[in-house]
Every structure is written in C-alpha cells, then in structure tokens.
C-alpha cells in the first residue's frame, strides 16, 4: 500500500465546532488513509469525542465538511452515515439491553443486508440461517458464545463493550470509529481486544481510535493525531509523535 492522498478514505475538511462562544474544534483537517489505524489522542476536554460526533452526524459542524469515500457526510442522518459504511463503538456501550446477545449481534447484519428499512414482518428470524451463522461465529471469536441467549443488559461492562464491537464488525464497515474501546477493561480484556483489533486490521478495515491508554495506541496505530484545545497540534507515526517535544509538553509529559 502506498501513502498517497488517493487512498484517503475519510477527509475531515476544515471543521469548526462552537458551542455558544466556546470553540470546541478549530481548523481540524484530518486525512485518514484506507486500511490504516489512525489514533486520536489528547488530554481530557481536547475535543476528541466532539470530533467523532461530528463525523457520525450526531453533531453538525459550525463550519467545514466531512467527506467519506467521495460522499459528503455533513448534514446526513446517523443511519444514512452508517449505510455508507461507517460504524461506531461508543464510550459508554450503546447496545440493546433487552435483546439477547445473539440478537444484538444479528441486528446490524440486517441493516447491512436489507438497508435502512425493510418491511419483512411476515418472514421468520428462524429462516435467517446465514446471518445467524455469521453471528455465532462472531460471538465465538470474541468469546461470548456461552452467553448468547442471555439478555445483553445483564452482561458485564467489559463484555458489553466487546459485544458492541462485534455488532459493528458484523457490518464489515469500511470505516470503524472507536471511542476508547478499552476504557474500564481489565488488562486481560484489553489485550484480547487489542488482538481482535489487530485481526481486523489484517482484513484491511480503516479505523479511527480515540484512546487514553498509550499501550493500546502504540500497539495498534499507524498514525497518530494529537488534539489539544480543539486543535491538532501534532501528527505523524507513533515514533514521530513520541519524540515531538510539543506533544510531550502538552500531553505525554504529564501522563508518563
């Protein structure tokens, strides 16, 4: 793979976001290349989650645009953005607590196959062998097979996060956005998740990760952008970022 701009799959172009008088994001220009894992790091309140919310359509940018795969995402509904191939894992897991684990994992596959709406109210879930098989394999992969008939709401927090990741993966998205995918996980679960994410990388899925845990960032990221005060203050390979004095001052210096 080359690193020419032709491979840019997500372009956050000159995005500003203000809340009242507060500048949450200024002059954000990000180019994410296909198949790469791009980490966004920064101290608390740097605007990381706001940036992610702008990308998935939860927030409208005050200025600027988000272009994905040649399509402008700005102004689109969250479900339309998902339908073009963007999936998101949330900081606090957004799952279907009242459905079984298996159903949680099956549902996204329907959205992928049937689009945003299909009137299939007389067909039976039992006949969806293909989707069910995929879902069971996925649960096998993330080690939740045993719990597949449990109500998802009764899973542990770590399991919920892994299940949410599995839900996104069921859609084979072109772009996967992860908001602190390992926060609150045990070291063991964190490592399992890193392995899982590495495996996806081999499949060529583009990922944007927001993460606090430097261990996770440096084991996964191809490229890192450092956000502070709503601006990108540095960008580069993990090695470059690690050695950037500005970053050390703003962020890493305090953390390590």
């Amino acid at each position, binding site marked *: 793979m080359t690193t020419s701009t032709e491979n840019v799959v997500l372009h956050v172009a000159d995005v500003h976001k203000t809340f009242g008088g507060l500048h949450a994001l200024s002059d954000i220009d990000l180019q994410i290349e296909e198949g790469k894992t791009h980490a966004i790091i920064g101290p608390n309140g740097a605007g990381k989650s706001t940036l992610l919310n702008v990308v998935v359509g939860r927030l409208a940018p005050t200025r600027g645009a988000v272009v994905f795969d040649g399509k402008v995402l700005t102004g689109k*509904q969250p479900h339309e953005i998902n339908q073009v191939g963007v999936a998101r894992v949330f900081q606090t897991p957004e799952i279907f607590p009242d*459905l079984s684990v298996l159903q949680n994992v099956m549902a996204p596959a329907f959205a992928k196959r049937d689009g945003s709406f299909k009137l299939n109210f007389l067909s039976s*879930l039992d*006949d969806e062998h293909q989707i069910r098989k995929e879902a069971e394999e996925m649960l096998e992969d993330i080690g939740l097979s045993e719990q597949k008939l449990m109500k998802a709401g009764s899973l542990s927090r770590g399991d919920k996060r892994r299940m949410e990741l599995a839900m996104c993966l069921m859609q084979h998205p072109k772009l996967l956005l992860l908001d602190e995918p390992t926060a609150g996980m045990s070291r063991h679960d964190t490592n399992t998740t890193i392995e899982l994410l590495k495996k996806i990388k081999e499949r060529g899925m583009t990922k944007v990760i927001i993460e606090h845990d430097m261990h996770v960032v440096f084991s996964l990221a191809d490229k890192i952008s450092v956000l502070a005060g709503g601006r990108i203050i540095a960008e580069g390979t993990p090695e470059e970022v690690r050695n950037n004095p500005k970053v050390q001052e703003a962020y890493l210096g305090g953390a390590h």
Partner: protein
Amino acid sequence: MNFQGIFSMSRKDLTTLVIFSIVVLALPIWLQPFGAAYPDLMQKFAIFGILAIGFNILFGLTGYLSFGHAAFLGVGSYTAVWTFKLFSMNPIPALIFAVILSGLFALLIGYVSLRRSGIYFSILTLAFAQMSYNLAYSVLTPITNGETGLQLEAGDPRVLDSMFVAEEAGLPVSNFFGIEMSGIPGFYFCAIFLILGFFITQRIFASPFGMMLRGIKSNQTRMNYTGFNTRPYTLTAFVISGMYAGLAGGLMAVTDPLAGAERMQWTASGEIVLMTILGGVGTLVGPVIGAWLIKYFENIFSSFNESVLHNLFGFLPDGVEGFVVELTSMFVGEGWHLTLGLVFVLVVTFLPGGMMEGYRRITTLFTGGGGDGDKKAKADDTQTQPAE
C-alpha cells in the same frame, strides 16, 4: 420472503397457535362453569382480544404509548356501519373497508405523531383522538349522527343487497351469506378473526421486523447508528396496530350495527392500555388474557347490586353485614370503574409486567429460588429467540 416462508413456524409457535385456537374455539364450553358462556360476552372477548393484541404490537414492541387508539376503533365502527347502509349487510366488505380506512387514518396520525417520542408522542395521540371525538360530536354529525350514534335505517340504499335479495320488512341484520351475525355464529365469526390476528402477531413477533421494533424500544440511538431508519418501522407498527383497532371496531358494528362517538373517547383508549398492561405488555398471549379478565369481571361486577350483596353476606351479623355491603357496593355495579382504576394502580405499581410476569414469578418460586438470578438474566424467551 417467499410464500413458503410465511407459513414456516417454529414448533413452539405452532404449538402456541394450536393451543390458543382450541382455547378460543372452546370458549362456549369452558366458560360454562364460570357462567360467562353467553354470546354477547364471548363476542366481546374476541373483539377486545383483537384490540389488545393490536395495541400490543405498538406499545409492547416499540414502547410508544398511544393514548388515542380508541379513535381507530371508532373509525372502524363508523366505516362498517356506513358500508352496511350503502352496500351490503355482508360483514366482509364492511370489515375490509373498516380496516383500510382505519389504516389510512392511522397513517395520517402516525406520520405526524411519530415525529416525537416519549410523553410528547402520548400527548399528540391524545390530542388527535380528542379532536376526532369532538368533531364526531359536532361538525361531522352528517357522517356520525352525533350523540344519537350511527344506525341502520329502513331507507338505506344497500346497493349490493338490493340487487340480490328482496327487501324485507324491518331492519336487516348483518349476515355472512345467510348466517346471521348474532349469537353463537357471531361469536365464531369474531373468533376466527381473533385467531387470524393472533397468528399474524406471532409472525410479527418472530420476524426480523419484530426484532427491529424491540430494538427501537430497547435503544433507539443504537438503532440509528446501526443504520436503521426507525421512523418507517414505528410508522408501520402504528398503522398495523391501528388496523387491528379498526378491525375490532368493524366487528363491533357487525355484531351490533351501531356506532357512537363515545367509543372514541380517551377513557376508552385508557381501557385498551389497561387490558394490555394487566395481561402483560410485550408478550403474545398476555394482552388477550388482560382483555378477557377485564371484560369478564366487568360483566360480573356491574351486574352486582345491593340485594345480591345482602344475599352474599347474609351469614354475617346484622351490623357487620350492613357495613360490609356498604363497603363492597362501592366497587360493584356502577362502581366497577373504581375497581378498574384500583387494579390499574396496583398492577402498574407492583406488577408492571402484568399477569404474565406474575406467572413467571410464581413458576420461578416453585422451580427453586436458587436459579432466580440466572432466570432473570435470561432473555425473555417467549418467542423472542431465534430458537433452534
């Protein structure tokens, strides 16, 4: 998907359907010991059963609480009576028109109301239902016949009937190719629609569509970020549910060709909600059980009067008897609604899952309390699982 797919059911669903059908068709037999086996009441059982399972498709699956469902019931009734008046006393065209028109009406109201959720949705549906009710009583009197209610008249054209059958003296009775739709035949006619309605609900519950509706109730945000456009889903559920109510309203007119605006009042909507809650929201048979219980006890309680009570408590000493009779008389006869209100409060407070939850709790209690936590953690396995 394909024609075969429609009839392929899991064994569990099939068993439920068969048992349900037997229970419904055998109502005239097993209601005997309860003294409730007369046709009028059984017709109500079937009609309100349809109403409740239809309401449950909306409230039970999507969690959207409509406080205006009685409006669709009213539209169904008016449409059916008009069909009788204009075309034929055969119930089939009347029901077809009732379902179509209430469906269209639901489409209109749902399209607007579903732009909001939560209590705003409830208040919007309430506002629409009140508007319909007020209009039915005032400007729409030419269509609804206002307070008197819409009735059959000797001079009605009945275009189709007059082509085939000679005009008889007196008011005609709705008849299904010669079978009069009153009494036991009337009940069986309604019962068949109840079973059909139940079957369709089963299909919805077991379909991907049903799962999406549950997803909306469980977490609408996740639905959106998973790529689902939730509004067409809720709108479809709303329309289907409105059509069930229209069917129920139509059947009311079939068994008794009369339609009044009070059928659309919001207290009537409240009763539909109560039936569903009492039986068990979101379960398949719960709403039917709720509807039956309420109609059964309504029948019993409202027939009680002081003399019945005096007989009942005659064994008590005089002073005590008077007191007990006075106290209980509050809850029976005219006071039936007080009982209803109390049951409502108690069920919502202590058993929001209704009778079905009560049943589950009791069975858990008897099958060993040790596995309690486990059982609760399991997904609600009434039809919700893609079973083997």
